[in-house]
């Protein structure tokens, strides 16, 4: 089982993902964004950061990095891909996930640990029971998820909404629980097949109990268990 962690110019959370996955006992290596060979990897991580300085729009330039064509092919074959924070923005820009991430509604960069509610979804990366509340840090300026009403209805109907911002007790404030103003409190979504997952929070930062906590671990262990069931490398 080997994770591939893509480094774009301006990525800055790739070391955290490597540390998290290796501390869980998995093999993981960097992939340079200019590479066009990702064979040998079983799961791809697009990490957080500020790829290409967030110029034009967050993720808009990274989407065209040479490696992305391979990542798209990998995902189309059913390969698991997770995009964290800037990685989520890149997945949306690449149309691998619907919608877009706008600037936070309060215009403030947000850096805090927040409660999130796991929703019942088809996401292959998460098998925590629905309504489980996890606490994971967010660290972003553009996490305000938006999509049109038709897309939102489809996401809901297909079980593609994976994580929602919530209150500490798991309930949602009718006025909105998303600190960034995200539509319907959405913090993470997946594609219809469930293999491509994008989320604004940083689960890799809560994998090492010496550093913070362990609420992020399931976001890496689940996919490994699923791949083990499917068997073999792609």
């Amino acid at each position, binding site marked *: 089982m080997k994770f591939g962690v893509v480094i774009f110019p301006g990525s800055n959370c790739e070391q955290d993902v490597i540390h998290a996955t290796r501390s869980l006992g998995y093999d993981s290596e960097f992939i340079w964004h200019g590479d066009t060979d990702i064979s040998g990897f079983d799961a791809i991580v697009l990490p957080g950061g500020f790829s290409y300085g967030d110029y*034009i*729009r967050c993720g*808009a*330039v990274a989407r*065209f990095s040479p490696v992305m064509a391979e990542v798209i092919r990998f995902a189309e074959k059913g390969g698991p891909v997770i995009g964290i924070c800037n990685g989520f923005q890149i997945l*949306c*820009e690449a149309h691998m996930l*619907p*919608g*877009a991430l*706008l*600037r*936070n*509604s*309060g*215009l403030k960069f947000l850096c805090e640990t927040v409660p999130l509610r796991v929703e019942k979804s088809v996401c292959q990366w998460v098998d925590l029971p629905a309504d489980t509340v996890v606490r994971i840090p967010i660290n972003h300026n553009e996490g*305000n998820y*938006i*999509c049109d009403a038709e897309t939102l209805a489809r996401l809901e109907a297909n079980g593609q909404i994976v994580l929602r911002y919530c209150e500490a007790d798991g309930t949602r404030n009718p006025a909105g629980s998303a600190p960034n*103003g995200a539509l319907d409190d959405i913090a993470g979504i997946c594609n219809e097949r469930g293999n491509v997952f994008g989320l604004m929070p940083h689960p890799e930062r809560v994998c090492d109990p010496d550093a913070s906590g362990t609420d992020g671990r399931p976001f890496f262990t689940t996919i490994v268990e699923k791949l083990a069931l499917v068997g073999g490398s792609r």
Partner: protein
Amino acid sequence: MARYEIFVTYKKGIFDPPGATAERALANLGYEEVGSVKIGKYVQLEVADGPNALTRVREMCDKLLANPVIEDYRIQSDEKDW
């Protein structure tokens, strides 16, 4: 060479936080006549002349300079508006 100017703005219905902030600030300054403020992006391109120049500039907007999911754009070239 022709100069193309591109104006990128949020689609109708997409909340524009910087625009909303400027709107409130202008109201606070007493400019009550301001109905709404939208803040967008401005891009200038110098492009070699060619038969498909405009089509290709549109393509550049759709692919990279604007995100059709949330943004509209308007292309203007040499006083002439498209």
